[in-house]
């Protein structure tokens, strides 16, 4: 697939689908809602991860829909322990693999270690174990499925819920217009750990997601991918709009697609023209209550933050801290 190069799929080549691997590692029969963007992202991420990998998953939608005893939708070796410790479990796996390899007890290639969790499992309850694993330079990839609320428990707000969005615990009311905090910037937090690879991805651009996951799992040391996972149930949107909405998120610069390689920012999908955020908000029932002042505030914040991102892409030096002191020092 070198023809596409790493995360170069700015052009959505119509026939690209036919050249992508057909093996399904996240099998049919999982019980996600109709039109689940998260399941679509997981399906493609697992293709990119490939056979030789071990996955640790946090409690959440993707864990519940895929692992109802006695059935499992996972073709990878897969472990779920609890909600807030996925990165710690992953660092235990990584430590064990290192020992097995050093003692010659590792048959086959060194498996990639991948940790997965939802936005709640990553930016709220799981942030501590994630930060620990990143800071320790653990050789693993963390993928956050961000559907922007606690969907498995019935759409409660998380720190990743966007400003103004309605959830069952950030309802609009006489005294409230919904979520009153701006979405926590997990990508910035990941970059702040000085790790070699960070990226955003979404099921709107599946091959962009595919190549970023491939690049992350092949990057030695910690890598973090933040995936905007459209959730028709939680966002009160039509089930057939999932991919369209994901693309609109990038076209309106609400969710830009970029990667940060050794601290250097690079846009991987450059919409020809940035559309107004209203185009993205309109098809979603969770924003229907917003009035113009709130939409304008969202527009302004989105424009400013996109501008900052573009500037970061031109930055002269890298936001990077060598987790491992290179040999010879």
């Amino acid at each position, binding site marked *: 697939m070198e023809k596409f190069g790493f995360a170069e799929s700015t052009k959505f080549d119509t026939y690209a689908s036919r050249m992508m691997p057909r093996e399904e590692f996240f099998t049919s029969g999982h019980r996600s809602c*109709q039109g689940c963007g998260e399941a679509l992202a997981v399906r493609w991420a697992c293709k990119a991860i490939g056979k030789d990998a071990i996955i640790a998953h946090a409690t959440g939608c993707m864990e519940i829909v895929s692992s109802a005893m*006695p*059935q*499992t939708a996972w073709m990878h070796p897969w472990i779920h322990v609890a909600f807030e410790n996925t990165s710690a479990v992953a660092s235990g796996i990584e430590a064990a693999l290192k020992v097995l390899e050093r003692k010659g007890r590792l048959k086959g290639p060194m498996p990639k270690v991948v940790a997965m969790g939802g936005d709640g499992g990553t930016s709220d309850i799981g942030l501590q174990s994630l930060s620990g694993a990143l800071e320790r330079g653990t050789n693993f990839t963390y993928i956050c499925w961000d559907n922007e609320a606690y969907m498995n428990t019935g759409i409660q707000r998380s720190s990743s819920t966007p400003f103004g969005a309605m959830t069952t615990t950030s309802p609009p009311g006489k005294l409230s217009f919904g979520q009153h905090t701006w979405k926590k910037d997990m990508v910035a937090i990941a970059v702040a750990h000085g790790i070699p690879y960070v990226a955003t991805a979404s099921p709107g651009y599946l091959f962009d997601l595919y190549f970023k996951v491939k690049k992350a799992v092949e990057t030695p040391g910690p890598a973090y991918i933040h995936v905007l996972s459209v959730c028709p149930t939680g966002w009160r949107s039509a089930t*057939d709009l999932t991919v369209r909405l994901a693309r609109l998120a990038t076209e309106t610069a609400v969710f830009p697609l970029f990667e940060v390689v050794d601290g250097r920012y690079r846009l991987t999908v450059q919409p020809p023209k940035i559309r107004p955020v209203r185009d993205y908000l309109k098809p979603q029932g969770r924003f229907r209550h917003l009035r113009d002042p709130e939409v304008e505030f969202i527009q302004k914040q989105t424009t400013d933050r996109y501008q900052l991102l573009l500037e970061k892409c031109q930055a002269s030096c890298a936001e990077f801290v060598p987790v491992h002191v290179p040999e010879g020092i």
Partner: protein
Amino acid sequence: MSKAWDQVTWQEIEVGGVLTEPGTARNYNTGDWRSSHPVWDKTRCIKCGVCWTVCPEAGITEQPDGYFEMNTYCKGCGICVKECVTGCIKMVLEES
């Protein structure tokens, strides 16, 4: 566990509740969930496979002739219809 899952005895549950066979979710027919399903107009389909790509269920399979069709796992969400490059897929109500 071949037995119906709610007839299994405690002795038959693997140590630690480990599921030793991967991908057994395939035994669960999510097709029961749909109330409508996609139908392809082969005269306009260009066999590009985008529908196969965007299906969250891997619920679309390429046929020997290169065209694509839904399989038993389709939940009827309609993403393929919306994303089809030539717009040649449409949803048809399940006959009850």
